[in-house]
């Protein structure tokens, strides 16, 4: 409709020019359906299944949680496995530091992004009923776990705006070795980090 309303010579030239650029610059991207199998999902279906939250937090839902609310959620739904104050049980690792196999407080942790904590609690916790927490409960549980790890303060509120801004203590110490991998690329020698 847009092009019909602007049916001038200059617009046509621009459009043809754009098409030429697209065709010459990226022939590999001209991917039409070859086999015509599958069905088109509805936008609602995609939205319902696309729950992953990336580091910039753009996918985070509405809601918020405090440390105090999180302590309550934790006591009800997390403590049985993760122990009092996240220190672990004989059955399960603790939550301090995040991701470490031993419940001992050391400098830093193995989680570079706070959004990753939110995402994993949201998709995988509690283990008896994964995916059953409301967004507010996930925000609250995340706040409590981050507080236990001395990453946020007792009165901080975690929501879609504040969560991506939280800097995990070990963020700058992660090296993604093969982030720009290309076919045929030689493996980094020995695949061992060298000083």
């Amino acid at each position: 409709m847009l092009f019909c309303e602007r049916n001038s010579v200059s617009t046509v030239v621009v459009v043809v020019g754009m098409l030429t650029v697209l065709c010459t610059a990226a022939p590999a991207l001209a991917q039409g359906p070859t086999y015509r199998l599958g069905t088109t999902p509805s936008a609602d279906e995609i939205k319902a299944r696309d729950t992953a939250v990336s580091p910039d937090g753009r996918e985070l839902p509405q809601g918020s949680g405090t440390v105090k609310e999180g302590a309550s959620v934790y006591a009800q739904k997390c403590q049985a496995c993760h122990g009092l104050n996240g220190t672990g049980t004989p059955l399960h690792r603790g939550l301090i530091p995040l991701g470490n196999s031993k419940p001992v407080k050391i400098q830093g942790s193995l989680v570079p992004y706070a959004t990753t904590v939110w995402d994993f609690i949201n998709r995988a916790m509690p283990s008896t009923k994964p995916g059953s927490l409301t967004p507010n409960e996930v925000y609250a549980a995340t706040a409590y776990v981050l507080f236990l790890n001395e990453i946020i303060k007792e009165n901080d509120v975690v929501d879609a705006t504040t969560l991506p801004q939280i800097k995990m203590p070990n963020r700058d110490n992660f090296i993604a070795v093969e982030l720009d991998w290309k076919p045929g690329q030689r493996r980094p020698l020995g695949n061992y980090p060298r000083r």
Partner: protein
Amino acid sequence: MGSHHADRRQFLAESAALASLAVGAVESVEAQAPPPEARLKDNLAYGQPSRFDTTVRRALGAASAITDTALTTPLQDLDGIITPSGLHFLMDHVNGIPEIDPRQHRLLMHGMVDRPLTFTMDEVRRFPSVSRIYFLECNANSRPLRGPNGDSVQLVHGRTSCSEWTGVLLSVLLKECGVKAGASWIVAEGSDANKYTMSIPLSKAMDDTLVAYAQNGEPVRPHNGYPLRLVVPGWEAIRSVKWLSRIAVGDRPAMAWHEAGNNADTRPDGKALGFRFALGPKSIITRPSGGQRLPGRGFYEITGLAWTGGGAVTRVDVSVDGGKTYREAQLQQPVHRYAHTRFRFAWEWNGEEAVLQSRCTDEQGEVQPTIAEAAKILGVTPEYFLQADHFNGIQPWRINRDGSIQNALL
């Protein structure tokens, strides 16, 4: 008989008519299967090992958390290069193995694509297929001395297996959706309870990554991802997402729990290394190996497996004197890229103490290091590898005079 043949002719005619409408392929295949009452009810319906074969079993390895399960492949008991599906290793970070009805299973592909699409299993199977022999290996395989005493090739190295996988190249499915310019990653998700998530560069997804529905000729086993799993050749197996149900095309990795930091290796200087995709060249002598006992001096065929994330194994050398001298082993042909490669080496044991070890070289020219060489590259002591992943050091087995065999790595 006459009416039977008439029914059959009528059936064939109907099948042909349906096939010409391109809607009847699946139904006609199902109609050819024998009726349930004609199937054998005892274990002849699915052949089982001899009752005298009681040793070839998976073993329970050490798991690190309540939701993790580790079952290791009995490499010492196997021959050739294919791991029987029932003996494939299992190292899961999911909350139980899901029971998935393939009729309900859907693969959703969306994100930076021209046409988001949902595929049923029947639709996935209608795409052009390929069969490829690929190994899978857990990035945490081969930690030195793992297990109760570290004297077992199964407990130390049994987190690798090799199968013939059949499925659709992921590139075919991605092209069907039309990948948009600017896309550089895919994020794959399973339909287990935790919705296990992993990110893979688009370049690998478009290269040789496979969406597999069959393993060794039959449907992928539930513990290996039934009805659909990703197989990412040569890469740490945590990328090969099981129970695959969603692929989002995007321009960045998801930084999901199991990839952001959980599988990163911490270095002595405090840095953590993640996103280490390709596995290093590795070889293991599986017989004779730790925990076994040689009955006496005389001839033995040393055998084992080699593999590499660098492509094809080009050479395996074997030493019987702890690495002082090496001689080239025979490789079972054909050698498949990103697959286990069987090697064999004739050996006469004179009854004296001996240390057996093997060394793999791959098509990129990379050579499997000793633990000392690996430690030197890193600037660490060999003990560092007790807790580090991606270790591919040479594995020595010491043959004692009484024929007993021990892990001689550390």
